[in-house]
């Protein structure tokens, strides 16, 4: 066990995967000599060489497209997309090529590729550097989508994602990159399993990635007011771990989903629909959503008003309690 930042945990997880399996290749813009703009890959080129930690041309479609070619040869590429808003040039390669390849090949060809995307806002960045685009990929059959929130999960989930024989979109919460936490040597948790961080009998908050900490803070504040509010860290978006969500709904009867993406057709909408279908008689209020507004990510000076805050989460909990 050791204490690491989320960046450090990702770095350690990548190092372990590369040491364990020489088919693992990292590729992306500025990840080699520089170690990535967030330093997630720092030191790895020195350790594993320029062939395995590849500074690519500045071309996201090329990064994913060539990763597909490498995977066809038996490699296990891990692509870094520098910022969430830069993934769209690769959208076709991800959605039409990577995601569909196995189905198109009649199950003959699998592509074990991980696409790492630093995601979300809260870092005062210029436009295109703060987006939450998980719904696009979760809506695409053939992809797996996961989102880590803590150093421990970052360390274990990146290794599990690399071991998966399917393509995995791996979200990293960039405003939590420097948060520190305990990292255990082993994990008995499967990649596609949600985690109950806190049980609650009045309401359950469901969050992933950067909003997990927000949800925990809100749950603590609610406890001070005498409410028992639980928190589920989704960890996996495709597939969703519905059984954990259903169990928590049965206990609390109220669910508030919190994410940075806009609520319109977001993951919260899917969770609300799924829980309504399976837990209708256990619900004491409608499933509520707290997320971004349906507008392009705003300029940095107003992002605090745009992002789901503890106050907005508490207001939703109040609304659910008083329904």
């Amino acid at each position, binding site marked *: 066990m050791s204490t690491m930042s989320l960046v450090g945990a990702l770095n350690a997880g990548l190092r372990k995967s590369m040491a364990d399996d020489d088919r693992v290749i990292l590729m992306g813009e500025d990840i080699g000599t520089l170690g990535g703009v967030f330093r997630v890959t720092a030191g790895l080129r020195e350790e594993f060489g320029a062939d395995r930690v590849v500074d*690519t*041309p500045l071309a996201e479609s090329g990064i994913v497209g060539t990763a597909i*070619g490498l995977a066809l*040869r038996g490699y296990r590429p891990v692509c870094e997309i520098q910022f969430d808003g830069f993934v769209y040039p690769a959208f076709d390669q991800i959605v039409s090529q990577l995601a569909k390849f196995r189905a*198109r090949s009649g199950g003959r060809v699998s592509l074990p590729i991980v696409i790492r995307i630093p995601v979300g806002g809260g870092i005062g960045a210029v436009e295109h550097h703060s987006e939450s685009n998980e719904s696009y990929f979760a809506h695409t059959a*053939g992809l797996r989508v996961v989102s880590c929130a803590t150093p421990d999960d970052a360390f274990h989930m990146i290794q599990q994602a690399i071991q998966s024989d399917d393509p995995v979109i791996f979200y990293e919460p960039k405003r939590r990159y420097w948060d520190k936490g305990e990292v255990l040597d082993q994990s008995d948790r499967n990649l596609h399993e949600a985690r109950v961080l806190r049980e609650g009998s009045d309401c359950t908050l469901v969050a992933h990635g950067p909003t997990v900490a927000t949800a925990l803070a809100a749950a603590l504040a609610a406890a001070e007011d005498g409410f028992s509010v639980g928190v589920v860290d989704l960890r996996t978006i495709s597939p*969703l771990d*519905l059984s954990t969500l259903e169990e928590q709904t049965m206990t609390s009867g109220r669910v508030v989903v919190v994410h940075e993406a806009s609520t319109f057709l977001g993951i919260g909408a899917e969770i609300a629909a799924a829980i309504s279908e399976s837990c209708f008689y256990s619900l004491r209020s409608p499933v509520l959503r707290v997320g971004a507004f349906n507008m392009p990510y705003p300029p940095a000076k107003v992002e605090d008003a745009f992002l789901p805050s503890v106050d907005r989460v508490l207001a939703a909990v109040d609304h659910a309690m008083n329904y």
Partner: protein
Amino acid sequence: MSRQTDSQSTTKTRPVPPTLSVITEGSPLSFVNPDGTLTADGEAHGIDIELTRGLYREMLLARTLDREALSLQRQGELNLWLMCLGQEAAQIGSVAALLPSDMIFPSYREHAVALYRGVTPAELLVQWRGLAHSGWDPRKYNLQMAALVLGTHTLHATGYAVGARMEQTDEVVAAYFGDGATSQGDVNEAFNWASAGSLPVLFICQNNQWAISTPTSVQSGGQIFRRAAAFGMPTWFVDGNDVLAVHAATTAAAAHIRLNGGPALIEAETYRMAGHSSSDDPTRYRSDEELESWARRDPLTRIEKLLRLMETPESFFAELDESAERLGAEVRDACRNLEPTELADLFGNVYAEPHDSLEAERRSYQESARALAGVNR
């Protein structure tokens, strides 16, 4: 019928002749005139009669397959067919100059390439009968699935070549695409990537003059092969209706790649004699005169004339006709005997490892299918 055996007989290694240095100016390299006589370059290069017969045979069989498939589409046996009529020389000349171990990334019109590599008619037609999205195991033939989103596969070829370079093999990775695809960002990214990484990719552009209804004059502002210079690649500009010139250019380009490592570009100037697909009506956008002028440059006719000028025995043509007839019958039988596909079988193809929500949908589908079967009984 083993096409792979045929291919081996036509892929013997030849030295790179001096006339095939990089061609970046003037008219395309051509060996055989439309009347079957040799051009000056053809005279200088010399003609290998066995090679010529082998290539002619492959072109004729590809044309047979194409004709039968279109006819099956017209009879309602295929949902769609994308004809390769007129492009047999560009495809056969190039694929025959590669080694069987060279991986190929094709687009959707490379039926002649597929047939040459040994893909069976059943494996070829299953996609166009609407039963699958692809029909063959790419590893069996070193031939990947056909790319339908144009140009995307040039990046896959480039990535595949990254592996070849790392493993220090002498493989050439070939990507086939058309004039239309060269407008795509992915193709230009692949050119740049392959060149920056000095990767063994052979980019084979069949410029068939038309991207559905868009002519090359609207497609791009300059000749395609001229782009190679800016990307730092050698290029060969060749008459794509001249199978011997295409074969020689591809041999030279592949040899260059194996020797020097970096990528190369071939532009084979050819013509899509049929519509874009069985659904297309090319009379809406191009003239009979244009079609007739290209019909006079037909890739098979000129080689047949050459072979006759070279006193090929009539028995060669008679035997070939019999082979073509057998292939035609095989194509028709294969098409009609394709097994049906069940939706339930497709759930398992999406993910390599279990995916809970898709598994739930599979169970739900199977239950509702059973329930419906009960109702209908």
